[in-house]
């Protein structure tokens, strides 16, 4: 067992979300601030008690995003002792680390996601975004930043995932249906979630006939671009127990680095990708098992990501998701129950709730573990597993629980 100073000491005290819209007409800063204000209200804290902020973005300034400099200024928070910008699953873990280490007692995490000009027709025609792209604002350009060595000519960051999907099909003798089950599961949950961007149920025929984008990847393998913001208040377990909402505890967390580095085609093997590194680290820090989870949130930027995270989490062996998902299929509800129990992406995931870099999984996990979701409530939800991040960078795995 590895050290785990997080366990029993860190909890989530507040959660706030915006609507998920295809064309909000708002800035990511506005969306991030709305989520932040909602989370602060939800936790019932004075905003001046926030002494740490994790903003949205990948560097200190992160122009065009809800970065910590902009968020702290806009919220009028006088002083902080810990700040950072991050994205994908890592943002949550960094904030948890800050509380566990004592660099901050109460951290606000703000994550925003906007329809990008490489993935959304409406974003391409948005005059503000077109102008920002010409001005070189991060996230607004029609192509990514210079790669260290673009002999690797993946044009979009998604293409290596499409190639891995093809490799998965060939190496393990799988068919597209394994990915289709995941897409249908997520849409079935989204159809019951009023907050989801895509709520019309889909069939396997719909999935298999969706438009090819980067073969073998099709439209319904890809998450849905939206404008949205999510925020969490993370604090000590002791302080959370005095606040107005039931605390949700962080049982364990792990990041995950591999020797693949920034060259996506260099992954040594399928089960050496980053989700495995993060999950291997997680299970060394907890007594809980994959089967103990009531809900799992495998990152589904693309369906191939989710298959990787499910396998990495240990619900089945490497390359064995076809059998697992077939055996786990509830044909009446058109959803998955892994091992007959664990539900998958009850909010609809990135594929159908919306593209939020996985920040929405933490929000959904908190709400379900509080038991506050009414008709959508997962009965007796006590533990949730989140696995978020790229095959190559910024992966994180975390277990949240309703009891310390």
């Amino acid at each position, binding site marked *: 067992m590895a050290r785990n100073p997080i366990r029993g000491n860190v909890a989530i005290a507040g959660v706030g979300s915006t609507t998920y819209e295809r064309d909000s007409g708002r800035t990511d800063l506005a969306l991030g601030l709305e989520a932040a204000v909602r989370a602060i209200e939800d936790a019932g804290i004075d905003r001046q008690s926030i002494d740490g902020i994790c903003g949205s973005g990948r560097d200190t300034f992160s122009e065009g995003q809800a970065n910590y400099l902009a968020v702290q200024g806009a919220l009028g928070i006088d002083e902080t002792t810990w700040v950072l910008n991050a994205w994908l699953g890592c943002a949550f873990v960094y904030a948890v680390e800050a509380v566990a280490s004592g660099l901050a007692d109460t951290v606000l995490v703000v994550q925003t996601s906007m329809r990008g000009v490489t993935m959304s027709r409406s974003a391409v025609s948005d005059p503000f975004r077109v102008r920002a792209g010409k001005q070189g604002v991060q996230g607004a350009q029609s192509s990514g930043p210079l790669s260290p060595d673009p*002999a690797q000519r993946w044009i979009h960051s998604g293409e290596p995932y499409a190639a891995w999907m093809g490799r998965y099909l060939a190496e393990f003798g799988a068919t597209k249906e394994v990915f289709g089950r995941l897409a249908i599961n997520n849409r079935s949950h989204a159809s019951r979630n009023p907050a989801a961007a895509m709520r019309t149920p889909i069939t396997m025929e719909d999935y298999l006939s969706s438009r090819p984008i980067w073969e*073998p990847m099709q439209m319904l393998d890809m998450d849905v671009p939206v404008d949205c913001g999510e925020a969490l208040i993370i604090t000590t377990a002791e302080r959370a127990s005095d606040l107005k909402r039931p605390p949700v505890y962080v049982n364990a967390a792990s990041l995950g680095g591999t*020797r693949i580095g920034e060259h996506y*085609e260099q992954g040594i093997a399928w089960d050496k990708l980053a989700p495995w590194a993060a999950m291997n680290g997680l299970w060394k820090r907890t007594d809980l098992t994959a089967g103990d989870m009531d809900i799992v949130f495998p990152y589904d930027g693309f369906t191939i990501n989710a298959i990787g995270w499910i396998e990495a989490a240990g619900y089945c062996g490497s390359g064995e998701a076809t059998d697992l998902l077939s055996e786990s299929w509830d044909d009446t509800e058109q959803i998955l129950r892994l091992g007959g129990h664990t539900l998958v992406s009850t909010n609809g995931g990135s594929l159908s709730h919306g593209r939020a870099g996985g920040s929405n999984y933490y929000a959904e996990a908190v709400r379900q573990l509080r038991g506050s979701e009414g008709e959508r409530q997962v009965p007796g939800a006590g533990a949730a597993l989140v696995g978020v991040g790229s095959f190559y960078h910024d992966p994180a795995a975390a277990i949240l629980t309703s009891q310390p």
Partner: protein
Amino acid sequence: MSSDLALRDRAFARFEDVWLTQDNIAHYEGLLEQQLLINRCSNCGNWVYPHRPLCPECLSWELVPTPVSGRGHVYMFTLIRQGRRIEEGTYDPPRVVAAIELEEQAGLRYLSTVTGMTPGEVVVGMPVQISWSDAPADPYPSFVAVPADGE
């Protein structure tokens, strides 16, 4: 590693959109001369790609740009149906992007394209060999199927 300033300047000019550094310049100079150069560790023989300055196996700095045979197999690929949406509102035509695993070393993969066949004929694992364009404006190699007789 770059001793020929004229060649370096040609690489700077031709690969305008590539972030060229002291660590990768030899590779691009090689492309201009239709040579696929990959760094090889002269201490332990390990091939080091992408072009980083240190051998990850033995931590030697003695990396030498070295020609590879140009033979390998398709490790994975995607057929890009929908390319980058550019401001005029059109898409790039469909094309194959493939990670070619070079025969010199397991896991040594070079990102390129597969030509000389319809995209639907490309399969994971197929043997390929390097092919250089006759057009001087296109310095990037592609890979083509190895003929049935093996040569």
